[in-house]
């Protein structure tokens, strides 16, 4: 059970609360605060990787609070926060494999056998800010964390130990509608997909925590945002209607792909970016010269709007977002010989997104269909020539959820079957892009419930058709009581064998450096087969 604790709010929270409330309400009178409700957990996650040993020894403490405040004129006023502290002991317990001293024989040694291309590129420098000041400076404000910051990932300049801290308040309008304002560091969730995202792109994601496999709730990087929701409720046509606006006023942060030396670095991008030319007259030239800074300015903020509602058996949303690409785009600095201080700059271009979603319950099938789509302008895709090309992108996911009773499997509880098919279409595709013009990823979740739902086995399967790569993750969760929970499982991957020609080293297909994009997050992790166990105590 969560405990009701009388607490003194910290000055920051109180400042946000009183300031925003007074600002929004134009009200300067007294504010009455109730006791805060606290809940949270401590957890150890220990993962062991085949042939590598310990890959995670993550210890997390998380506390969530909500504090109601009574004011005149506004209702449901509350300050909400989530604090998290993590220590990952893998850098102390398996420092031969991970950390600042974890060297590789060749670039990509963690996911493919050496090939001819690897003689051109040197292995990535682990934690450049511990080992190479020049590369550290080149990757400044992007992949510049040192080993200690990976060990304690929330304790950084962005104060990530404050995962969320926002104030929310409702204003009852004269016509019965409700206006809600929320301001602070928060997650805003669009979309309803698992593992991969189509519309849920407002917050960047920390893939260094556990690739794509942790709940998005735990790996979204909260942002300072102001949201306004106009909750119109039902009208003569719609059963529910809501219009919301988002203004992300935070300084732009890209998704965290993992720094070279960390156990989870999606697409092995971290080591590629901290690599350098290994042979020839340009030996020693770093891959990355600079990461373009997007200093805070009004025009660098991000805005979005969503209209959502319910019409009969369908729930729907229409979404628009003006944001910045959260994955890096590498721009060659020179069309000819590489410049000695670095070959590429990393950009995060502006993107306009238009999208929508619809959920439909089919009475005949007794199942729910989900559709999400997005069309973006301004994204940049990697290619051999110049490193990138701007192209419009079309993404979609079709989801199908159904509950099935299978008495033969020894339980009266229904099994949840949830499937998703993600599609991606590159509208201006080029042959030198290390991605298919059309690609699909299919996912399956099959989850059962035993012993009053306290024992829950499940299997997740994800298959990337273009990469011909598959991840299989069976696991069993056991709730011992209201406080203790144990989860044991495996995460097995196959694939990652795709090659792609790199014109610099010749016309033949090879792995480095571009095939990492073709093999995707599942294929590039093909040697990350793991046994995983976590133990959580909630309060």
């Amino acid at each position, binding site marked *: *059970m*969560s405990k009701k604790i009388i607490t003194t709010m910290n000055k920051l929270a109180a400042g946000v609360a009183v300031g925003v409330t007074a600002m929004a309400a134009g009200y300067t009178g007294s504010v009455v605060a109730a006791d805060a409700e606290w*809940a*949270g*957990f401590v957890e150890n996650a220990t993962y062991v990787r085949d042939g590598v040993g310990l890959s995670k020894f993550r210890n997390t403490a998380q506390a969530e609070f909500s504090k109601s405040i009574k004011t005149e004129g506004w209702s449901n006023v509350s300050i*909400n926060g989530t604090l998290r502290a993590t220590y990952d002991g893998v850098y102390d317990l398996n420092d031969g494999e991970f950390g600042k001293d974890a060297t590789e024989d060749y670039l990509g040694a963690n996911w493919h056998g050496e090939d001819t291309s690897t003689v051109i590129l040197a292995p990535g420098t682990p934690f450049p800010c511990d080992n190479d000041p020049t590369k550290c400076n080149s990757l400044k404000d992007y992949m510049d964390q040192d080993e200690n910051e990976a060990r304690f990932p929330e304790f950084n300049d962005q104060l990530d130990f404050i995962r969320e801290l926002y104030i*929310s308040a409702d204003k009852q309008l004269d016509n019965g509608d*409700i206006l*809600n304002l*929320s301001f602070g560091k*928060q*997650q805003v*969730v669009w*979309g*309803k997909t698992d593992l991969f995202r189509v519309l849920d792109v407002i917050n960047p994601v920390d893939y260094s925590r556990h690739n794509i496999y942790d*709940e*998005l*709730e735990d790996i979204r990087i909260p942002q300072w945002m102001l949201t306004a*929701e106009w*909750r119109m*409720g*039902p*009208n*003569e*046509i*719609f*059963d*529910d209607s*809501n219009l919301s606006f988002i203004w992300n006023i935070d300084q732009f942060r890209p998704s965290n792909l993992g720094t070279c030396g960390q156990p989870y670095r999606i697409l092995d991008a971290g080591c590629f970016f901290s690599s350098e030319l290994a042979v020839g007259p340009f030996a020693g030239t770093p891959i990355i010269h600079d990461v373009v800074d997007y200093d805070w300015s009004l025009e660098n903020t991000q805005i979005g709007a969503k209209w*959502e509602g*319910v019409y*009969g*058996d369908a*729930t729907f949303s229409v979404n628009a977002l003006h944001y910045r690409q959260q994955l890096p785009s590498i721009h060659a600095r020179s069309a000819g010989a590489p410049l000695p201080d670095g070959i590429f700059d990393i950009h995060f271009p502006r993107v306009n997104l238009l999208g929508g979603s619809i*959920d*439909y*319950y089919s*009475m005949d099938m*007794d*199942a*729910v269909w989900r559709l999400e789509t997005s069309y973006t302008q301004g994204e940049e895709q990697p290619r051999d020539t110049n490193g990138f090309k701007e192209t419009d992108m079309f993404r979609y996911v079709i989801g199908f*959820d*159904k*509950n*099935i*009773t299978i008495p033969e499997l020894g339980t*009266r*509880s*229904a099994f949840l079957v949830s499937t998703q098919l993600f599609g991606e279409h590159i509208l201006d595709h080029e042959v030198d892009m290390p991605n298919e013009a059309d690609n699909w990823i299919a996912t399956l979740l099959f989850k059962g*419930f035993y012993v*009053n*739902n*306290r024992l829950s086995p499940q299997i997740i399967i994800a298959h990337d058709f273009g990469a011909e790569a598959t991840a299989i993750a069976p696991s069993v969760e056991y*709730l011992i*009581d*209201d*406080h203790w*929970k144990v989860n044991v499982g495996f995460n097995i991957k196959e694939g990652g064998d795709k090659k792609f020609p790199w014109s610099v080293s010749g016309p033949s297909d090879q792995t480095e450096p571009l095939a990492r994009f073709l093999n995707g997050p599942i294929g590039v992790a093909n040697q990350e087969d793991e046994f995983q166990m976590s133990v959580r105590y*909630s*309060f």
Partner: protein
Amino acid sequence: MLNKTFISLALTAAVSTTAIAATDQDVENSFFPYKSGVPSYNGLSAGMTINQSNVEQFKEILDPAMYEFLKAGDTEIKVGETTSFDLHSSYVDATKANLANVKLGDNPGEISGSVAGRPFPEEPSMDDPRAGEKLAWNYKYGYNWGDSAAIMPFYWKFRNMETGKLERTLKFNFHFLNFTHRTQQDPTPAITPNPSNLFRGIYVQVLEPFDVKNTQLLIQRFEDDLKRDNAYLYLGFQRRVRRLSTGQVTDSFLGSDVMIEDFEGYNGRISDMKWTFKGTRNMLVPMYNHNEMVLDSESHQDDEGYQVVAFGGKGNCFPNVTYQLRKVYEVESASVDSNHPISKRQHFIDAQTFTIPRNITYDRKGDMWKSWSIGQAHPDHHLPQNKGTGVAIDDAFTMIDMQAQHCTTGQFKGIVDPELTPANKMTVQNLRASGK
């Protein structure tokens, strides 16, 4: 032969769909069955205890599952005075106002003319092939929680009946709201706009423990009984609303012994079941004055000094409440869908309130599977704000899985207050807003 069958069917339809007009006297008899006296049974008196030693004497006024529990010594029951649970006068008046208008349609799940009040107040007849269905309609459009109410908080405890071990405690808030068939709270008889013609909403929010915190459930039931409910689930750890298929409605709710379809005795469509009236009888059912019961001072404390009902008996699976001898209608509902996890339920519907204080659920093989009790507290002996509401307050439930020897118990703080359940509580957007 064909003609004969056709004529027979036509006559049956005519008999069952043509309203044999109920009278004001029928209404009086239906709502005030104890006006001229309460039922009695040889040897039964208020204050006595029925247990293993004397259960055989009272078998006739016990339902089969309760008889088995008493016979096995799993529990004992104290007998209380039979009291009248008068429903709110607005509901009685609405019943009178619509007397001549209500008719069953040709098929189960079809009804016309029911605006508010009890649709079929006349005494059910064993000769009426659709009597069971009419009683089901009386339950569906019953006063139940009135026009709106909330259970804040609501404790569910998962218990091993054999060992008594308390496995889980879930703390909820539940809200109920009628969009139509309203009689007492403004607006009446319906909330507008209501484009999909919803009849009722049920909103559930989990407060504790942490692993299911902020899980929310929204059920929207349509006025059209042939249309399946819209059900939405918000999972706190995913922060998103998902539509539910009915597979989850007939599944264990959050690991409890209760399925969503079990809520309040039956929480589904009339048309999902074949309803059969089995007879009228006097039976002991858990209906009482909350303030006079043994209360649990540990599970819940608040500034009002309210305490929830205590539990005892085998595995602490039985509410410590008194049972009173009351007129009940026994109705059987057999699932139409052969894939439904149960074969049938045996409902013991309180004739005055049309609540369902006792249910027995049978598995697909026809064996007794679960026993449902929901204690009904008189509103005038409960929270001060419930006095005079005319709502029989759901106050304590137990769902016992007799095969698994496991139970889920529920302890309520039921409050009849429209302020707690505004219409915007029953929107999908509320799930997102409340779960954030």
